[in-house]
């Protein structure tokens, strides 16, 4: 591992003009004036030639990292560079689920930290991201699966994280929609994490962007990074479509495309890009008040506040950068949905789309320094990136600001592969298409 970046203490930049505080009373006041008093949620910054920190990627993790750098670690000389408009990558294309039910203690601690940050996020950001802790429910269909979930629940409870078993009778009452005796893989029971739930995904990007911008971070949209500048083993900045930008630290937060950016610095990562599909149905009146994960097939479902049911499937299983779904996976998800929830048979699916995932060789993310000094990576999120945004941002900010890993993200380093310390939740090994 390289030496931690050498930071000179710099004064915080002046706070910029704010979009003002959001509140019910302001909404009423603006209503009387024709809603004309609102201003931009985040400033459209023009890039300066140099920053202390350049974050590549205006998605959830990049914006959260910038926000925490500015508000927790006092580093405001920060630019977030985004190729297009912010928030249109995976933070705007996921199935919006948050939870911390993991097998490995390190991962439970990390995701639980994220869940705790979610719980106070809206008041901190003064932006309603509709964090809805309606519970996430995992169904099991065999004794082997029950044993796995029991082990996970026990492990979580040891760490003070909520998770409880539900009997078939309890499931009947809680999710009457589920056909427990569905003919092929009957449901034997479930495990519920009551504090899991969903978040309005777009609002996460916008809320962090607004908070970061107000704290002095430059959010630069339509600025594509085309190269990474190196001086030997040290990264000194980036080349962009809007000119070169020097930086003491460059942080890549471009999950889905980490390999491309790392290649610009001459690094090869333990990552493959795969597409994960999601679906949304037409809006209907409330039907489902919990997130359900099917244990015998590839799908999970929740109902958004707008009324649409949001479904997710599995990855298509081969390297791809095409943000689109395929027909076989669509049929598979629909079959699983109708099997488990036969009442949904006549519900109509509106849209399908795909998100490009950084799939790592052990299924766990990477928050790490790199062999190049001045280059930090936040990536490899597999399917778990959205729920991890607050913790990912905080721990990446810590790594950038302090030069040492955050205690909760120490296990997510890049060297774990070569050292034989992989964090493989599913135990499928270095086959990203199987995670």
């Amino acid at each position, binding site marked *: 591992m390289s030496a931690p970046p050498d930071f000179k203490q710099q004064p915080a930049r002046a706070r910029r003009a704010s979009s003002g505080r959001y509140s019910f009373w302001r909404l009423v006041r603006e209503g009387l004036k024709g809603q004309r008093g609102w201003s931009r949620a985040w400033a459209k910054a023009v890039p300066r030639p140099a920053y202390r920190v350049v974050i590549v990627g205006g998605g959830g993790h990049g914006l959260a990292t910038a926000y925490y750098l500015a508000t927790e670690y006092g580093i405001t000389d920060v630019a977030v560079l985004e190729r297009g408009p912010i928030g249109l990558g995976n933070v705007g294309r996921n199935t919006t689920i948050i939870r911390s039910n993991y097998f490995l203690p390190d991962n439970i601690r990390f995701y639980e930290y994220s869940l705790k940050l979610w719980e106070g996020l809206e008041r901190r950001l003064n932006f309603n991201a509709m964090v809805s802790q309606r519970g996430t429910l995992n169904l099991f269909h065999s004794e082997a699966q029950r044993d796995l979930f029991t082990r996970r629940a026990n492990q979580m409870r040891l760490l003070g994280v909520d998770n409880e078993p539900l009997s078939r009778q309890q499931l009947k009452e809680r999710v009457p929609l589920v056909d427990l005796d569905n003919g092929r893989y009957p449901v034997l029971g479930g495990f519920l994490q009551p504090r899991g739930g969903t978040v309005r995904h777009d609002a996460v990007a916008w809320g962090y962007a607004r908070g970061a911008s107000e704290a002095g971070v430059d959010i630069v949209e339509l600025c594509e990074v085309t190269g990474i500048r190196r001086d030997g083993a040290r990264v000194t900045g980036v080349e962009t479509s809007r000119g070169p930008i020097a930086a003491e630290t460059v942080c890549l937060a471009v999950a889905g495309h980490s390999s491309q950016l790392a*290649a610009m610095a001459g690094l090869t990562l333990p990552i493959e890009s795969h597409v994960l599909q999601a679906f949304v149905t037409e809006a209907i009146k409330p039907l489902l008040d919990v997130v359900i994960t099917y244990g015998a097939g590839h799908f999970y479902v929740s109902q958004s506040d707008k009324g649409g049911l949001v479904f997710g499937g599995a990855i298509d299983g081969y390297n791809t950068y095409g943000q689109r779904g395929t027909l076989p996976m669509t049929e598979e998800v629909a079959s699983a949905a109708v099997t488990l929830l036969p009442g949904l048979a006549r519900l109509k699916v509106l849209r399908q789309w795909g998100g490009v995932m950084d799939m790592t060789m052990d299924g766990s993310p990477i928050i790490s320094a790199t062999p190049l000094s001045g280059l930090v990576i936040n990536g490899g999120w597999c399917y778990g990136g959205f729920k991890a945004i607050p913790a990912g941002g905080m721990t990446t900010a810590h790594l950038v600001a302090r030069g040492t890993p955050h205690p909760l993200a120490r296990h997510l380093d890049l060297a774990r592969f070569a050292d034989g310390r992989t964090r493989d939740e599913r135990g499928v090994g270095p086959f990203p298409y199987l995670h």
Partner: protein
Amino acid sequence: MLRIPCPYCGERDETEFRYRGDASRARPPADAGLAAFAAYVYERANPRGWHVEWWLHVAGCRRLLKVVRHTESHQIHWVGAPQEPPSVPADASP
């Protein structure tokens, strides 16, 4: 959905095949050492562009195919036997 032209069976849906990942890497010789094996097992070029990859035709001839496919457009440029040198377009665009 991919339609892969299997040289032995004809053009078939992707669901007949099992993906086996990046075919541009060769297994290092037994004495190559830890670093070489770690790179072989874990590191991937993961190009956004032409990708040389393995597909095993499990629901057909059960032959292993080497396929050159574009990871964004999914266009398939070349399919051949495992030992054949693949034809990879120089231009990364689809």
